[in-house]
């Protein structure tokens, strides 16, 4: 399954809808979807500074939320938006990744938190599908 994502409307928030063949690809695609929200259409060159990210959680759904919240935290703190992801290790309760992105001279953190409301990660034939709502 080719990883893809869509930003869906929600009453006052944004819902990320993601499909991918593996959990690793799903997390990477979710990161790209989040970057789309954070950059809000701004044209940014890829291949900026990289950093290692490690997140552990209680289950697969929580891992997706915690992964996105870590990216939101880094964006708020350093104005660093991750755009490309190499997932070294991904299982239901842990992800270890290297991400490259851009440091912006403007504040990117329009996305304030990933929530557990309506959170869903389900198996499909040949892959996974997930929905997560972002507080903006």
């Amino acid at each position: 399954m080719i990883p893809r994502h869509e930003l869906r409307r929600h009453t006052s928030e944004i819902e990320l809808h993601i499909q991918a063949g593996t959990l690793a690809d799903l997390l990477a695609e979710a990161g790209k979807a989040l970057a789309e929200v954070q950059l809000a259409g701004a044209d940014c060159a890829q291949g900026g500074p990289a950093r290692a990210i490690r997140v552990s959680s209680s289950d697969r759904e929580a891992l997706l939320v915690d992964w996105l919240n870590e990216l939101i935290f880094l964006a708020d703190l350093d104005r660093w938006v991750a755009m490309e992801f190499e997932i070294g290790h991904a299982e239901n309760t842990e992800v270890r990744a290297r991400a490259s992105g851009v440091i912006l001279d403007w504040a990117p953190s329009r996305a304030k938190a990933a929530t557990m409301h309506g959170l869903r990660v389900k198996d499909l034939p040949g892959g996974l599908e997930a929905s997560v709502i972002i507080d903006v």
Partner: protein
Amino acid sequence: MTAYPAIARSAWFREIPTTARADMRVPVRIYADDVLWQQISEDRSLEQAVNVATLPGVTGQVYAMPDVHEGYGFPVGGVAAMEAESGVISPGGVGYDINCGVRLLVSDLDLAAARSHLEAAVHDLSRSIPSGPGRNPQLDLTTADLDRVLDEGCEFLLDLGIASPEDLRNTEAGGRLPAARSASVSPKAKQRGHNQLGTIGSGNHFVEVQVVDEVFDSAAADAYGIHPGRITVLIHTGSRGLGHQVCTDFVRQMDQIMPRYGIHLADRQLACAPFSSPEGRAYFAGMCAAANFAWANRQAITSAARRIFTRAYGTAGHLRLVYDVAHNIAKLEEHGGARLCIHRKGATRAFGPSHPETPIPYRHVGQPVFIPGSMGTASYVLAGNDASMTLSFGSTCHGAGRAMSRGEAKRTRSGHEVRRELEQQGIIVRCPSSSELAEEAPTAYKDVERVVDVVHHVGLARKVARLKPLGVVKG
């Protein structure tokens, strides 16, 4: 979307009985007229209110205010009371923007005197008060000072010279919740918050310059110092990234420990723990600290606004704080002799004249309540009623309430169109992003006059004055 049977009890409220779903512990009461009811029924806010009515220790009724709309976990515009001894506390019941709230400042200026410098003053507000997800380099706090803000709230700002004793008297809880513990706030939250004091933030936050357009209750208006034609400033913001991180940290923690307490939920965003548990107490202490940060944030913005108005207008431009109210918070309160943890998410405290927490100068009329409209529409000042204690645990609504998603709002109107329409009404607009301006278009919200009328007729609070916008700095 699930439809629930709602019984109309009057023209102003309906109830969903506990028979509607097997796991409900208390009924849900929705304050709305027929038009608002129709709008409320179109999203998932009723289902979310029913989910809240299943939480352990919930008591009385769950209330949905006339501005209620779908949130995550709890609906925005929801009030729920949990027994302090046997009930839970839920970070989702407070929301991410802990102590998001509103404060109203009033000047001695009338519109004629203010007009000549108004555009310059609004421009100065937009230049001096960081908006969007911005930072405030002028108040970059050391770790020790940030801890003092978290522990002491506005009292610490007295030491910094940017608050007065009168400001503290006219702030809910004196701008300090004593249960706050900076040690319960994570290093991540502190990293996000250390340079965000005195900033508006993004979304629907704003600083608005207004004129008192009409007074409905002259006794209360006199007590608040609000007179027709007077210039006011309304500030709407909260605890910024710090509060969001506190909520994120504790939703995560409570989601993991709920099985230990045998708690099973319809929605994981309702993650909670017994109030009396170590996790519940830690969240309460951290939430109170974030609430203190939010009051200090609005106070720091007040200080900047005062500098600008005094520079523009001299002593007539001094801005006196009428009151500051939280609308995303959990507080321990006494109701009917019971000690309850009242969750107000997108709901404002509305204590009446006889409540001891109503400030003494307002004791004869009730505490001030502020209900901002959407951009370009009026905002309202109301006074709390004693009747609200039995009607809604002393609560009322917090705004007009969204009627349209952000995406739908942007599709309906462009930011440029919204800006032009506001300017045609004579409203000065300062917003760095046209896209975000479109998201907050008046058409994206419910009719604030209708919402306020329901509040007034039900008796949750009574109308005191209407404020008309003159200039808005949008976050």
